[in-house]
């Protein structure tokens, strides 16, 4: 190959190069470029496969933006869009999971003793969990089978192979065919399947505890969750106030930070059955009051900053804060109902069949897949490229493991995290088709129908290609806008 570039005229070399590239270019043009351009055109027509096909050959009609307008009047479009965004709430957990896996698998610590210690700790944790489950009522055989075997494997392979087996095992979800994975999880989620078989006796024991001390749960759990949620919100308000005061956050960042606080509360209020106006209006009022209180505060230090200063930090924080606050809000909501539920016994969830559990079930499966995904490989690569001198310097300064992570590992991995975040948002918006088709057919009651599955239904089951193309371009616009925002605000923190 190296000799090829030095022989013949430039024209001949150009032709040779094009000759080699041509199959790929033709493939790209035939299967990507042309369909892409066509789909854009189709989005503005009334193409319906029933009428516009090789048999009936009726003329296409230009309908302008009618497909797009109709899309927003479709009773289900917003529902499916909300489903798509809801499933994306799992993204921060997925990022944290893949980072955690990479941290476990890499030799961040240069002390072999610590690594062996980690394996022993993992073994103890697994064994301890098994004992806890046993105390909770799970059958002895089940405990032995699941945790005993896991603990033994963890200890033996960890010591013998130094972790290389784990790398392979952790990466398993990524090279297992998606459909096979979905079928496996469908079996696991079976109401009488292994997950619920393990959960049932534990929940029975918990129900017994709740029945014996209902007061602790009816007010204790909501109170604890409420206090924690309030503390988080106060901390965030205080933080925003400080950042506004020292000019490290602009007005857009402050409002974004407040909206992110109000979002989980609003959603919980809505799910509790409050009218949409109250659910949106209440938190919105709090945001407005908070914004006025913070933004009217004079800045005593620092220069005037850009309006969007600090926005990337707020968005990054929101990725963790919103799911956490949502969980706490759910604790407040469900805690009070726990005694009445326990009175008739706590049943394991009907994961894929229950409207309220179907989405979380899909998110849990996504988390499992994300832990052993390409993201983990990217983090492993990122971790290996962190200069060891930084850790040595930190060791000499007596930094704790947490400080080493927070001040060295995390900032050094910011470009990787940014990349994973961008790709995660893109895949999150586009995803869900195979899962919906294999596991739930988009049900129950449309709970797991995502935009991509909706596009498939409209295009190939309903035959409205114009409408499906419009939906696809709306999806593209969403991906494009969110990616732009990511690059506009996220890239800054990655490069800082």
């Amino acid at each position: 190959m190296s000799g090829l570039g030095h022989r013949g005229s430039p024209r001949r070399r150009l032709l040779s190069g094009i000759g080699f590239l041509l199959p790929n270019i033709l493939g790209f043009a035939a299967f990507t470029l042309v369909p892409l351009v066509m789909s854009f055109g189709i989005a503005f027509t009334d193409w319906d496969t029933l009428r516009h096909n090789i048999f009936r050959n009726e003329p296409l009609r230009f309908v302008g933006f009618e497909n797009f307008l109709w899309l927003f009047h479709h009773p289900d479009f917003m529902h499916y869009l909300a489903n798509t965004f809801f499933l994306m709430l799992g993204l921060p957990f997925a990022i944290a999971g893949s980072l955690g896996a990479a941290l476990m698998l890499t030799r961040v610590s240069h002390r072999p003793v610590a690594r062996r210690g980690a394996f022993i700790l993992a073994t103890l944790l697994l064994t301890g969990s098994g004992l806890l489950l046993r105390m909770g009522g799970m059958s002895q055989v089940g405990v032995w089978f699941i945790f005993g075997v896991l603990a033994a494997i963890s200890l033996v392979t960890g010591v013998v192979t130094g972790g290389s087996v784990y790398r392979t095992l952790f990466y398993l979800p990524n090279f297992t065919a998606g459909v096979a994975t979905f079928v496996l999880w469908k079996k696991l989620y079976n109401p009488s399947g292994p997950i619920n078989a393990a959960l049932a006796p534990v929940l029975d024991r918990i129900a017994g505890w709740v029945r014996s001390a209902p007061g602790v749960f009816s007010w204790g759990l909501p109170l604890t969750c409420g206090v924690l949620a309030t503390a988080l919100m106060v901390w965030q308000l205080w933080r925003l106030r400080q950042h506004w005061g020292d000019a490290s956050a602009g007005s857009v960042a402050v409002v974004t930070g407040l909206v992110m606080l109000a979002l989980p509360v609003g959603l919980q209020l809505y799910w509790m059955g409050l009218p949409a106006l109250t659910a949106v209006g209440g938190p919105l009022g709090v945001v407005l009051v908070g914004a006025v209180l913070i933004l009217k505060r004079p800045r005593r230090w620092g220069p005037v900053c850009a309006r969007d200063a600090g926005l990337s930090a707020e968005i990054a924080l929101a990725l963790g804060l919103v799911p956490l606050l949502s969980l706490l809000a759910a604790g407040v909501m469900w805690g009070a109902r726990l005694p009445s539920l326990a009175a008739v016994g706590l049943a394991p969830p009907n994961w894929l069949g229950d409207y309220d559990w179907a989405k979380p079930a899909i998110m849990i499966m996504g988390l499992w897949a994300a832990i052993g995904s390409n993201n983990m490989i990217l983090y492993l690569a990122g971790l290996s490229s962190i200069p060891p001198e930084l850790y040595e310097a930190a060791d000499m300064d007596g930094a704790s493991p947490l400080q080493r992570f927070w001040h060295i590992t995390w900032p050094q991995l910011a470009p990787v995290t940014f990349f994973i975040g961008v790709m995660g948002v893109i895949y999150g918006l586009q995803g869900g088709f195979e899962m919906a088709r294999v596991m739930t057919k988009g049900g129950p009651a449309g709970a797991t129908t995502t935009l991509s599955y909706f596009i498939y239904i409209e295009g190939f089951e309903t035959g409205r290609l114009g409408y499906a193309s419009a939906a696809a371009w709306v999806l593209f616009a969403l991906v494009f806008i969110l990616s732009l925002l990511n690059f506009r605000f996220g890239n800054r923190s990655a490069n800082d």
Partner: protein
Amino acid sequence: MKRSFLISLALLSLASALLYWTVPGKRTDIPVLYWITQDDENKRATVAAFHQWLADEHLPPVELRIDNTNGEATKKLVQGLSGVGSDIMDLYGYEADLFPATGMILDVTEDAKRLGFPPAATYPALKPDFIINGRQYGFPRNAGVALNWINRGTFAKYHVPEPPMHWTLDEFEALGKKFVAAANPPGIRERVYFVNLVPREQLRRGLGLANYNETDTRCTLDDPRNVQILERVRRWTLEDRLMPSREEGEAMSADISGDGSMFSHFTSGRFAMVYVGQWALIILRPRGTFQLRAVEPAMDGFVNTDLGGGSVGVYARTQHRKESVRFLQFLASAPFNNLIVRIADGLPPVPKYAETEEFLRPSDHPNEWGTAAAFAEAARDTGITMSKSPFVLHSIFYRVEKELTEAMISGRMTAAQTAKAMGDRLNQEIALRIDRDPALRKLYDERVRVQQLIDARRAAGKPVPAAWINDPFHLAYYRAKGWLEPEARP
């Protein structure tokens, strides 16, 4: 590098040419037909019988091959509209309307008259499944009526009396409660159900309500009668637990792989009854000898059953038109009908074969005696094909109805809200389709005009010409009620 590139290119070209020459159609002198259907013992027997029939009739031979990989409706549609559909296709449910509407199924009206498989050769009630706007687009492979199969052993086990042939909704509820109470004592791990499902469309029809009005121009599911049925369904599923919810049903299916899960639960006694066609015998026979009965689904008012055959159509772009049409002719022949009788794949498409002793009392299966007669009687007397509107794809109807019912069962909507949402959503679909299709708009306007005439006549208490009514249920209902003009009566 260039040499290896060229060698690779040559090898790939050679391999492609070899592949092309080994395609079955290239290796044989006789035409090869592809038939989209399931690849099972019975279909293979059908293929063999077709080959034999051609030989017996001294017709030119063809090679019929089963294509079981493209049976999904979406695949059939996309391949057909792309010009690469299989020669012959099974058409189930809404496909029988949708595919001819696209133009991809051959109009065989004239061939049917010439070769002897006209609509008159099969059950009159089946016509809406293969006759569209007066033109014939295929022929039934069998006729299927769904009834409640009863496992008599299960009822005997719990000392609960078996249901009668005809029963009301209240009787169903009372007997169902009695059964589940007896079959599910405290502490039972695997719940036993009275029935796997109830047919919502037939229940609505019992109260005189169809999916659409007489001319199929408006969805009528926002009617209070639908609310009544939905409330019953919700109560039977959640409170009385006579039948599994969607999630419970799926969980039961997940216990046993494959399509036979419903039958496994039926034979093992977890379902006392299953609502399914006579073809169930194909699956039940190899599993053992069960004492069986078949009764009508419980119903208030107008007794009706769900009739629907698997019809077969010919792809409009087939390169073997003549040979493909011969297959439809074969479906009306004695060898094929006798084969259907023997394998119990529903009712034979030609009714006279359902009157034979072999069909009614198969000598090898005395445990089934009585069931075949029930199915034949239902096909003849109470069977009505599903209501479909040319203004809404039935796939959309099915999805909307199913999703909203699921939403109600999961407690997100009341029955009244569900019924209203069904009506609103489907009428919105009608508005959208007629807005975009001028030809459909014309048909719609014409039918709306007829609908107004029907409404006026009904309001005045006058009879209506049968030709005005498009919906198969309304036609049967009007006939039963004596609301048709005398000359239109059979």
